[in-house]
């Protein structure tokens, strides 16, 4: 199982998914319209590292974070 966290204004509780790679996570998340509208402008982190490809295998216990547009300061 991998854990998906939705950060900041997405305002959704974390979920757990039984998936093998990041592509599968993307596929699952796009099924929910309340999430998919955030995805086009959100960055993705795997275990707190920003990733730039979906071709990444996942292992049990991995944490994926969805980071919507930011504005610090």
């Amino acid at each position: 199982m991998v854990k998906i966290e939705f950060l900041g204004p997405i305002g959704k509780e974390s979920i757990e998914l039984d998936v093998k790679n990041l592509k599968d996570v993307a596929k699952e998340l796009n099924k929910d319209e309340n999430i998919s509208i955030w995805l086009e402008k959100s960055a993705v982190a795997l275990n707190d590292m920003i990733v730039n490809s979906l071709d990444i295998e996942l292992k049990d216990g991995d944490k994926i974070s969805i980071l919507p547009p930011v504005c610090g300061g």
Partner: protein
Amino acid sequence: MEIRFQFYLLFAVDDMVEIYKGPLDVKDIISRWLDECDGRNWGAFIPFIGIVRQEDGIEALSFDIYEPILLKWFQEWQDKAQKKGAIVKMAHSLGDVPIFTSSYIAAVMSPKRRVALELIDEFVEDFKANAPIWKYDVIDGKRIYAQTRSTAMDGAGLMSKKD
């Protein structure tokens, strides 16, 4: 700035990143950072102090922070600064920050003036674009995501259907 609030330090990492609950005590922070300069042979110290403006009827801004990635983002900047013989520092607020108070201080200490001036600019701009912090306007006690002022981070859209 007249002190009308109590200041709460939540955590500090290696004396480099300080996160406070609510507004920053600017004088105290700058004063401590100046003390750190003393005798260290820095030639230039430039703090950038961000203050919450009164506009669009807001009573405060409010912030969420995702600390693990913030600290990684910061460490990369510290490494970059160190290669130029400089160091960077930052303080930021979590939660509500009333108008006319400070939510953000970034700073550079460097032997050289040019390095300091360039670094503070790049550091503050990249902070705005890529530090994992989310801003909300507080109006009538309600927290409204500052969507139009927010910036998609580098690499955003990776999971979008369109791809």
